[in-house]
């Protein structure tokens, strides 16, 4: 258990090192400082401006978490509703598709207008950006239930609701997890867009400021804070998803699948 917890962390550190080396190489081969600061100067900024970065990071973190929760709940809820009432699907799905096809930032000013400059508009933005991916992966997952299970449930007199919650939903958990993991990486992007459209705090705000002033090292320091948030969120979600599926081989050991069952 502990081993499985530390191993990915170790790998992450390894991956980071690789990335930093690549980064240094890019600089070596002539990316100018105003485009890409040296890793060292970014580290320095990270230390000297820690207070500033931390303050803004907290703001963004709050927005991200709230947006992630809202987005996944709404998305998963929509998927559930659509797979429960199939007749809705034929009209609601294209509607969803239409709204998804509108780039969030195209309507960002409207959102700011309606939800203000506070965290509200950022949460809405993060929610919007993950809503459709979550809804569509969940929905696809919910549709792919083994029909035999549903047949069995219906002969048992299972109502559509119960079939949804006790058969379709657990069967779709791997797809849900896949959707949630993706949402974990997308929610921060939503919050940042929200901050770019208008705000007075948050990492997105800080990045814009720094970018506008060509303080690329501060900008990259903020970016690194954002990365850390995103990755933490991702691994938390990943771990929770695994915990929610104790029967899955990842957890029960690789030899659990003697009889050729679906993993």
């Amino acid at each position: 258990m502990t081993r499985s917890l530390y191993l990915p962390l170790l790998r992450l550190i390894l991956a980071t090192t690789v990335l930093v080396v690549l980064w240094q190489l890019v600089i070596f081969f002539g990316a100018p400082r105003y485009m890409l600061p040296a890793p060292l100067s970014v580290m320095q900024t990270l230390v000297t401006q820690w207070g500033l970065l931390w303050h803004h990071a907290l703001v963004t973190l709050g927005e991200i978490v709230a947006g992630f929760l809202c987005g996944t709940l709404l998305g998963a809820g929509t998927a559930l509703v659509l797979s429960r009432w199939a007749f809705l699907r034929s009209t609601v799905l294209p509607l969803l598709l239409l709204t998804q096809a509108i780039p969030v930032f195209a309507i960002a000013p409207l959102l700011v207008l309606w939800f203000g400059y506070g965290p509200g508009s950022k949460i809405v933005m993060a929610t919007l950006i993950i809503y459709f991916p979550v809804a569509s992966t969940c929905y696809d997952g919910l549709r792919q239930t083994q029909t035999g299970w549903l047949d069995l449930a219906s002969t048992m007199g299972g109502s559509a609701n119960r079939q949804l919650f006790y058969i379709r939903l657990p069967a779709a958990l791997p797809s849900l997890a896949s959707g949630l993991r993706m949402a974990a990486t997308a929610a921060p992007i939503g919050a940042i867009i929200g901050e770019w459209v208008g705000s007075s705090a948050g990492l997105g705000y800080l990045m814009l400021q720094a970018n506008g002033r060509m303080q690329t090292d501060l900008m990259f320091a903020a970016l690194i804070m954002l990365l850390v948030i995103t990755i933490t969120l991702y691994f938390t979600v990943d771990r929770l998803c695994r915990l929610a599926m104790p029967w899955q081989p990842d957890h029960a050991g690789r030899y659990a699948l003697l009889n050729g069952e679906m993993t």
Partner: protein
Amino acid sequence: RADERAGGEASTPLSSPPESSLRLMLDWYVNPSHGPIIIAQQKGYFRDLGLKVTIETPADPTAPPKLVAAGRADLALGYQPQLHLQVDEGLPVKRVGTLIGTPLNVLMVRADSDIHQFSDLKGKRVGYSVGGVEEVLLAAMLNHSGLDMDDIEPVNVNFALTPALLSRRVDGVTGAFRNFEPAQLAQEGVDGRAFFIEEEGVPIYDELIFLASTETLDEKRPLVSRFMKAVEQAAMWIVNHPDESWTLFKSYDESLDNEVNHKAWEASIARFALRPAAFDTARYRDFENFLLDRGVIKKRVPVERLAEDVNAIGS
């Protein structure tokens, strides 16, 4: 919100007014062009006049006027050329003060390029940020030198003007500010050459102006008036104490403290409007004519619709 409205109505110049809040939306992130606002905030001039000013920054300079119109902010920073378009499109905003009363806009090229005069731009790539009228201004300048838009290749670089020029992805950029971009270029060891817009056939205009919603202005005019007073005090103080003012400015936000900003600050001091509330009718009329002639706007409006001197009416 309630206390603000109450404050606005109850205020009289004599009694010490209760503190009223005012939301100001800058045009862009905080930079030396915003000097008087920041100094007024730092020196407490707003507070002294009973104002509690919150400063917000957008990423998209076209958003603040809309947000003021929608009542999401009380004041916004905008650009005069833009204002004409906005009013033409029916946006209920008008100019209520001036932050910088001269054009800052220049067309910058690298000093080490082969562009020595404006007409050398023929066949070159020119980067600009979409501000709505920048293309029009560019066209006017080109016409002035006997060229037109087809002779150059315009590229929208969306506010990344300096990097575009530094990386030679474009040969020139328009929409650069004469107080800021040269300092930024210098920081990277590149000299720039500026073509001043007013010398290339564009009428003189106010670069940075304060906008308010026409719908709520009557109610807010006393507040705006006080706001302008504080900005005026600050502008004056900057001129009087150039070095001290830099120290105070950079203390607003630690990320402001760098060499580029310092240089830009020095270059900006001479540009701040010393009479922010004052308003020059001719400037607005002339610029409107200029835009009308080029078909950028569709109709003429009374100058009072565009701008006013908040101290001339009411209070």
